């Protein structure tokens, strides 16, 4: 299904593009729908040269080692782009992308997109800003993995998700909008599934509550911060 100009307008990346250019882009787009747990791109696959943006739903980006161990790199929601090498790299998928819930992905053909960008260089700056923020976030992740202990990395992940993916206030505390099951957290911070359960249920239990499926509620923000300070020193 092709996207309409008004659907494109909903994507923050395109907000600087004029209505005329959105009309121009529309025929070069496609919106594809995926079921939960469906793979959108396999690691090592050759990409078609096009922009990939999450149109609705949530997707997970992960890498697999030769021995079968998995690393969860990022979780993306609507409006976020992925598969950057399809536009700016060697067109080989560096990771596997799969849906966490029923999702839709917007594709825009590279040649048409670049033509629109040349007419509206502000779009290129927006992508540059988005990449720059990702580089900074990855710097933090690498620093955590090299120099911080596991409990600090786990708390930082929860705090990051609360800050960037939103929360809602419930009677028992502040609940993360994003679900973070044990397995996913473990493969994001570089610990085993069992170690993740132990840290969540013993070490940081009073400060957060974990419910089935990865529903996390922060009960005591000050306590979380104080655990980071204690273990960080």
């Amino acid at each position: 299904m092709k996207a309409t100009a008004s659907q494109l307008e909903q994507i923050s990346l395109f907000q600087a593009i004029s209505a005329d250019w959105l009309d121009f882009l529309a025929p070069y787009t496609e919106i594809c729908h995926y079921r939960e747990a469906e793979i959108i791109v396999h690691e090592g696959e050759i990409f078609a040269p096009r922009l990939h943006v999450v149109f609705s739903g949530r997707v997970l980006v992960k890498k697999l080692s030769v021995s079968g161990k998995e690393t969860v790199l990022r979780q993306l929601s609507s409006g976020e782009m992925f598969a950057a090498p399809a536009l700016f790299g060697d067109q080989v998928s560096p990771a596997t992308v799969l849906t966490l819930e029923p999702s839709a992905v917007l594709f825009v053909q590279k040649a048409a997109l670049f033509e629109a960008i040349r007419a509206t260089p502000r779009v290129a700056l927006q992508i540059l800003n988005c990449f720059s923020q990702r580089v900074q976030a990855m710097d933090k992740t690498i620093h955590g993995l090299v120099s911080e202990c596991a409990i600090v990395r786990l708390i930082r992940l929860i705090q990051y998700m609360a800050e960037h993916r939103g929360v809602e206030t419930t009677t028992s505390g502040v609940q993360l909008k994003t679900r973070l099951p044990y397995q996913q957290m473990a493969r994001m911070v570089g610990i085993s599934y069992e170690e993740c359960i132990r840290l969540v249920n013993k070490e940081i239990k009073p400060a957060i509550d974990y419910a089935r499926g990865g529903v996390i509620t922060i009960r005591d923000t000050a306590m979380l911060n104080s655990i980071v300070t204690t273990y960080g020193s």
Partner: protein
Amino acid sequence: MLSTEALKALHPHVHLQLYHQKEIIFQEGDTLPAELHILLSGTLQIKKSTATGKETVLRLLRMGDFFALPALFDESFCTVIVLATEDCQVLTVSKTTLLNAIQHTPELAMQFLVMLNQRLQQQHNTVHGLVSERAVVRLARLIHYSALHQGTELTVKGEQLQIQLPYYQIARSIGVTYEECSRLMKKLTDTVKYNRGGKITIFDWEALAAIASGDTDLV
């Protein structure tokens, strides 16, 4: 690395600054000027430090690489430490000049995006290595990557890396202790040789690539 054409387009508006070896250009938390910084010569180390002083070496920059990019997007605080590991020449371009240049030559922004994409993919590989690979695989990857991207020169003993990677720097890049790093290097004896000060010579590229791929068992 930025193309010569791109550097020429910016040329009339740049300023040149010199930094000496071991000089810190930015500290974490420093206010960034609204400028883009491009390394013209020398090597820079980008690192972060914890409250207790533990350091992580994130990457080395070489000629044509840029840094302090967040300054272009109204993020005025530096989030990393930028250290000159040898004498360096750095070009600075004001934010206004750069944005004007991009308006006239959007290809310039495309080049930045290609470079940033490479940096991001390298970061993803690093994270994947730290989370899912053994330390010896991470070590082999760092040496292999540095040889491919920073170059080597042929000596009588074999191909020597252009950059020096002392034990401490390797240890703080792949998340092991100094002692563990020295022990791991001995495991690679038939493949690479470490000499005082971080001079690394590669004897067997194929074996190094195989270890870096995670596909070889090393006892």
